[in-house]
């Protein structure tokens, strides 16, 4: 190995050093490569276990947590929205029912008022009609009386003209009354 090293040293003096066969099979470089490989792997391993893996796993866990909590929150909000819609619908239905009730009540009240007014008006009309009838009856009775008086007067006048001084007033009146009755 020592002789090989000196030989290599001699070759290194040349401008370009070329590989003989496969450098991979040059076992003189093995201890060196293995040493540096172990150093490298140990460094990477410590980077991994001390810094990289805990950091990435915590980031991933935090992201998963955030996503789950966001989804939960979205679900909650959706639930709330559904509840609000339900409440809105219920309120609308209640308002409609209330409005219908008020309309019914008002209608009934108006009907009642109307009925009462009608009754009063009818009663008044009946009263007025009765009074009018009474007056008409009175007027008629008066008219009949007047007709009798006028007829007696006219008869007396005619009799006094046709038969002057011959007839008595009472007889004529009785005769007229008798005629009128008949």
């Amino acid at each position, binding site marked *: 190995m020592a002789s090989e090293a000196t030989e290599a040293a001699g070759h290194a003096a*040349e401008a370009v050093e070329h590989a003989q066969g496969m450098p*991979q099979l040059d076992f003189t470089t093995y201890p060196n*490569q293995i040493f540096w*490989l172990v150093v490298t792997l140990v*460094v*990477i*391993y410590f980077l991994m*276990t001390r810094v990289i893996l805990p950091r990435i796993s915590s980031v991933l866990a935090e992201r998963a947590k955030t996503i789950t909590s966001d989804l939960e929150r979205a679900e909650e909000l959706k639930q709330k929205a559904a509840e609000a819609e339900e409440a809105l619908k219920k309120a609308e239905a209640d308002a409609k029912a209330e409005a219908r009730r008020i309309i019914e009540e008002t209608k009934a009240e108006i009907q009642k008022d109307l009925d009462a007014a009608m009754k009063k008006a009818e009663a008044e009309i009946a009263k007025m009609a009765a009074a009018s009838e009474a007056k008409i009856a009175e007027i008629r009775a008066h008219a009949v009386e007047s007709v009798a008086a006028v007829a007696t007067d006219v008869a007396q006048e005619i009799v006094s003209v046709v038969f002057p001084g011959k007839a008595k007033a009472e007889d004529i009146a009785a005769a007229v009354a008798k005629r009128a009755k008949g």
Partner: protein
Amino acid sequence: MATEAEGGFAIHPMDQFLVKPLFGGSELHWYTPTNATLWMAITIVAIALLFVLGTRGRGIVPTRIQSIAELTYGFVHKMVEDVAGPEALRYFPYVMTIFTFIVFSNFLGLWPYGFTTTSHLAVTGTMALAVFISVTVIGFVKNGVHFLELFWIKSAPLVLRPILAIIELISYFVRPVSHSLRLMGNMMAGHAVMKVFAGFAGVLGLGAIAPIVAISAVYALETLVAFIQAYVFAILTVIYLRDALHPAH
């Protein structure tokens, strides 16, 4: 060796895999910083940039870079959980370390003038052996002697079981070999092919349309391979881990 190659016509596809001391000199001790060291350090920096700096904001809504870091995390995490079960998540940091190291090494090796650390058997073999040994130890610690049931296939006829046990045992010990050679071979072959085409392009000069098209195609393929081989290495690790945790077939 350099005598026949100085005409500018020679192609040296394997030169890119040479391990050289970084600060000159020719002595290569086990501690000497080399170009391999440099590119491993760049790998660490790249991982730190993506995973540490990129996730600095810890955003609930991630930035683009943070998204990449999280996707990588989720990808490996899911792979471990799906293949080896939730109790294997204890070993998730190991798998993550191996996967990120390989995927970054493979991609950084695609840079022009880059050095692919995972194209060396010293690197892939060490990782494969580490996986092999730790998985075997985990298997015995978790299951005791029952770990040997991995080789004793209960669903097979009794006569065949000893034969199958020998086959299973051999395949078990071949695992680190195939595990490491697959990654190293893929990385080395792709880069060597690119270098060969680049050499053709250099020879042909301005008329080098065909080699350049070929380089583009191979580069696209290598981009895919860089990811797939890292994934294959990681998922094989997880499969071995599953065998260790649940040896009974």
